[in-house]
């Protein structure tokens, strides 16, 4: 999509601008400067409750097998270890900032457990003009076995008051090299200075992805490093004498250094798919490893490698070899004689009904596709890769499409990375057209993916020339409603409403209606102002028939006008306003507004006015258009001899509005809401 590309372009542009940040020398732990303690507000945000004075991170490799013993094979296996150090100070300005004085450090537990090797923490307070320091005592540090794979070290710093500074300095030892921990330059409180250094031996090559709005300065350097390994041979039998030999190896370390200063807090805003697209951070992902006299161990480097890795993976591509237990299903479906989209749909419905999604988003199957099918449930790969197999089995060219869901952030085309994908859907290519399918969601249709999948582009894993496929803009949210209202001589209204929903409109309404005991309860719940009374004769068509419009029709009465006194009647003719209130209320917006799909909403309301009343005044017709037709609102009132016709339509064509366009968008919404609130005046004659 055009706008999305534009947005990404802006993001990358910002990142490539080098910023003047003066690298600051890391202060010593345990000694705080009195000026900071005296501070009563954050220099870059007068509204902050707490802020990072600084936040240093350092990832460093250390070779651990310094002494290799002939009688202890394990001693040579240790190899490199990764030490991740974090050292920060937070100024707590008031009580609302106290949460930052409770610290949690997660540690991965797996084949090799991560360990906290050092931990120092202090609280500093100013008392009678002097710095008073409280040290965190070891007995107040607790480790929780949070879940199978995670422990959490937790502690509360002592004596934290408004004005305190807390300091934490710890090191994690780990052998999980694949991802260095993501470093966030931006957090939910302001950061005056953030500094991350990765010191990587020449044997490891990382893919580095820098994201976010705020500029980060990058410097690269090298240094020479020595490692000295001592080999201890034990005497064995007659021939082998004991000896010790020492070898020294020189190698280069690459130093990647990132700094940023004066980073504002990341605000929480509505209509933002995920913070992850905009928050400033750096990710390191291992590309390959190359030790002297050893072949290269590739992880990922290019998109082609990503494709290959996925194809070769036993939990992805390997699962798609052969038909497995899909053959019987395919035979059954073929009997129907269906073809084309009809057949695709049969296959998709078959999978929906036979494998329930367990809510897990992943691109890898849990165990095997056959097993998931047998058990009747599985993760997203279990469901959708089975769908690919079935589609192939019934004769389609079908491929998996890996993607990143909305909450997982956007894929960066220039930064190949296998771990950025967290989801997979199925695709069919037929007569030059692409058909996307996700069987994890009962209400999803062909080319109508669940909202979570609507996130820029996905990658087709298969033999097609163009690997990237747009996930968005296949269908709009479409709603057409017509309401006919007969007003009798006492101004009592009897009405008939008819709503027709298509695309994401039908999708979202189906989901919403199912949350209620009955569609009637749903309609009642929509009318929380209780303006419509005696909702009756509700008919719902197409609730369970996907691809068909969802149609709701009902009749109602409204006696509010008849309770009115005086010889004039005034009423708001819009029975179902698009929005009760403006979703955009705040003055400013720092990040874009993102809509999931286009909107096409149309409404016609016809009032039949009794002969004892005469239309005195009506709202003026208007048409409002945002530049390039990005959004359009039309409101028309016609008085045709006893029939008052109020029609309006809203079209939103653009999915991403930049912060600079926010004010206009907000105004557009306000004007639309105001218009829909305007009154018709009738006079008794």
């Amino acid at each position, binding site marked *: 999509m055009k706008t999305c590309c534009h947005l990404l372009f802006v993001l990358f542009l910002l990142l490539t601008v080098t910023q003047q940040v003066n690298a600051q020398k890391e202060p010593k732990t345990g000694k705080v400067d009195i000026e900071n303690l005296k501070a009563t507000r954050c220099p870059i945000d007068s509204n902050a409750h707490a802020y990072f004075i600084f936040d240093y991170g350092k990832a460093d490799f250390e070779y651990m097998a310094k002494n290799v013993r002939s009688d202890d094979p394990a001693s040579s296996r240790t190899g490199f270890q990764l030490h991740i150090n974090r050292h920060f100070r937070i100024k707590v300005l008031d009580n609302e900032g106290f949460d930052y004085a409770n610290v949690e450090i997660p540690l991965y537990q797996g084949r090799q457990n991560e360990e906290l090797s050092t931990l120092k923490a202090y609280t500093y307070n100013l008392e009678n003009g002097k710095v008073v320091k409280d040290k965190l005592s070891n007995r*107040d540090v*607790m480790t929780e076995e949070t879940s199978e794979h995670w422990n959490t070290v937790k502690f*509360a710093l002592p004596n934290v*008051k408004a004005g305190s500074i807390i300091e934490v300095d710890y090191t994690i030892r780990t052998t999980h090299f694949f991802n260095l921990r993501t470093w966030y330059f931006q957090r939910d409180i302001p950061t005056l200075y953030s500094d991350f250094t990765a010191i990587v031996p020449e044997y490891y090559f990382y893919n580095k992805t820098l994201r976010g709005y705020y500029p980060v300065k990058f410097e690269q350097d090298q240094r020479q490093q020595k490692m000295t390994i001592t080999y201890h041979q034990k005497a064995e039998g007659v021939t082998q004498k004991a000896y010790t030999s020492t070898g020294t190896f020189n190698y280069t370390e690459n130093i990647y250094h990132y700094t940023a200063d004066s980073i504002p807090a990341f605000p929480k805003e509505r209509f933002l798919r995920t913070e992850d697209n905009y928050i400033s951070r750096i990710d390191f992902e291992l590309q390959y490893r190359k030790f002297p006299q050893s072949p290269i161990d590739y992880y990922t480097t290019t998109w082609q490698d990503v494709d290959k890795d996925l194809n070769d993976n036993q939990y992805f591509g390997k699962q798609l070899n052969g038909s497995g237990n899909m053959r019987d299903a395919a035979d059954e479906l073929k009997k129907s004689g269906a073809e084309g989209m009809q057949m695709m749909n049969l296959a998709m419905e078959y999978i929906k*009904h036979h494998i329930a*999604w367990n809510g897990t988003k992943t691109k890898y199957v849990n165990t095997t596709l056959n097993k998931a099918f047998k058990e009747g449930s599985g993760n997203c790969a279990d469901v959708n890769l089975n769908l690919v197999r079935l589609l192939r089995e019934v004769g389609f060219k079908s491929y998996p499409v890996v993607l990143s869901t909305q909450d997982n952030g956007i894929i960066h085309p220039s930064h190949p990375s296998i771990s950025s994908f967290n989801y997979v859907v199925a695709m069919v290519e037929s007569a030059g057209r692409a058909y996307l399918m996700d069987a994890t969601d009962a209400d999803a249709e062909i080319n109508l993916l669940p909202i979570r999948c609507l996130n820029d582009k996905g990658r087709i894993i298969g033999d097609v020339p163009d690997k990237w496929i747009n996930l968005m803009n296949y269908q709009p949210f479409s709603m057409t409603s017509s309401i006919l209202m007969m007003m009798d001589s006492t101004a009592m209204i009897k009405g008939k409403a008819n709503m027709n929903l298509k695309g994401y409109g039908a999708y979202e309404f189906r989901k919403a209606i199912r*949350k209620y005991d009955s569609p009637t309860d749903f309609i009642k719940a929509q009318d929380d102002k209780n303006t419509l009374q005696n909702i009756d004769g509700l008919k719902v068509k197409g609730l369970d028939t996907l691809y068909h419009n969802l149609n709701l029709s009902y009749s109602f009465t409204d006696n509010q006008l008849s309770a009115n006194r005086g010889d004039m009647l005034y009423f708001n003719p819009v029975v179902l306003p698009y929005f009760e209130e403006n979703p955009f209320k705040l003055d400013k917006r720092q990040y874009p507004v993102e809509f999931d799909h286009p909107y096409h909403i149309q409404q016609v309301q016809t009032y039949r006015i009794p002969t004892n009343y005469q239309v005195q005044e009506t709202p003026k017709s208007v048409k409002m258009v945002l530049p390039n037709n990005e959004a359009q609102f039309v409101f028309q009132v016609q008085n045709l001899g006893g029939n008052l016709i109020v029609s309006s339509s809203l079209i939103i064509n653009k999915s991403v509005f930049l912060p600079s366009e926010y004010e206009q968008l907000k105004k557009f919404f306000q004007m639309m809401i105001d218009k829909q609130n305007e009154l018709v005046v009738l006079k008794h004659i």
Partner: protein
Amino acid sequence: MKKSLLTLLCTFIISIPAFAQSSRDAASIPDSLKKHANAVIREYQVTYNRTGAGSYSREVHLVATILNSNGRSKADLLVSYDRNSSVAEISGEIYDAQGKPLKKVRNKDIRDYAYNESYTLFGDNRVKYFRPAYKLYPYTVEYHYKVNYNDLVSFGNWAPVPGYNTSVEEAEMTFTTPTKFNLRHKELNNDFGFTQTNEKNTEVYHWKLSGVKAIDRERLAPDFMDVFPVVLLSPDEISYEGTTGNFSTWKSYGTWTYHLIQDRTLLPEETILKLVRLTDSLPDKRDKVKAVYQYMQRKTRYVNIALGIGGFQPIKAEDVDEKGYGDCKALSNYTRSLLKAIGIKAYYTEIGSGDSRQIKYPDFPGVSQTNHVILCVPLKQDTVWLECTSQQIPFGYISTNNSERYALLITPEGGKLVRTPEYTERDNRRDSHILVNLQNNGAASFQLNSVFKDGEFEDVFGVLHLSAKEQKDALTRWLEVPGLTIQHFSMQDISADSAKANLTIEGETSRYAMPTGNRLFVSTNFLIGNSFPSHLRTDRQLDIYQRTGYTYQDTLTINIPKEFKVEFMPTGTELTSSFGNYEISYQQNGDNTIEVTRKVVIHQGKYKANDVKSINDFLSGIASQERQKVVLVKKT
């Protein structure tokens, strides 16, 4: 302020047990049990077996049919335990709509993780948890598990109906205990066909329940305990982490608690000197208490660490003094110790906080009715109550979470039940003065000045101490004003004898009146919305609880543009009902000013479900009154 003390007791308990294969088949559910139901408890058997003063087991067997996605949480297997208990058996199976087995729950499917409330930094509660992935409804789950307990303070309550939109086909509970241990029990909202039999030295208690229909959730619903069938259970003799006690009376229950808190008041000499210096010059005892309370508020913060007996015993005052943090027990005990150091007596007081928990049954002592600790300071004139877990709550204000209910004072002579103060409709007030300068196009500038007191104060308490920008954003979202621009505002805590806050705003709205050609339709918008609903469902099933009474008093002055004159003005009205009173009047002052005054009083009260009609008459009377508009017309 909803921070609880006895996390141990907050432990969520699904209790359950085996058999008749037909209950795996969703088609055999009677229609009457499907109405309003998202899930049906088919079979539920709980078996307690007490073996000693501090040891018992609880075995559960549950079969539940999940009818739709809203009932999904009822398919959860959630077995909680801690360092004093262990899960001895756990198994389960999932069935499809016809009752055909789909999947056995294996050990590797069951996750085990730390399970503490969000306000708890560290605790020892853990849970074994499984949620089936099955999504084709209906389907049925069957679980069986057994937990062995090596300590005893409570058996928990048995609520076979877990909540709204869930029906129960068959449920039963059996409790076996050596005769020498007394079991107290109390049945709510059902007689449960209770029987008690004796065999040699063993007592067997039995409760059963069948065919309980699902209830739909409604606004202003009564307390859970007033709606659903519940069996309260409590031991007399308890044995917990090396302590023993007797819970047969509140007095003896309080004795156990007193032993846990009695030696925890020691403070460093330096702190005592500081307190003496701080309070010495204050002649009035109440002022001394206030000074100590505010000292505590400045010095501490709320952090909950709940380990073993730490769920009931406060950490020592000297530790709070050193670290500056604690939970409700620790901070209340600390404040009590500070007061003791200057010779003022205060009682550590257990209470149930919020709507979901309180001492509702004074004849049923036990830990399961409390979850919080506050402080009671008896003074000659009156008694001061202190909520010690907030750094900002005004002195002496304990909020509607703790007001008007029983609380248990822990005294050297044991526990003593007392009532906490009430906040009435006269205390909980919102008074507003609004000035609106209306323009030709319907836009207006306005000034608002409001004072919020006691219960109404709680509405704004959450934003009172936020930063200016956060306050402005919160006000922008909260005020019911179209196209709002706030130019100036201030929010202040002006609490003195009661909790009070002041809010002033100067701003603009793009739509105060609706223009149509020659007219302006002026809605009498009081800027801050109403807390009461505009109507209740007419097919109401549940009694109606209005938990707090309150009063709004508003004066609205509208200056109209000089090109317009008043064409129509509503006549005003007075509505009286058992639910509340409402009066509004309109007056024209000179050519260009309209004055509207409004007073709303909502009474505290409990009403029968069939009172809904008269309540709705009152509410819709208000709603239609507030839709009335003053009509202005252009002067010709």
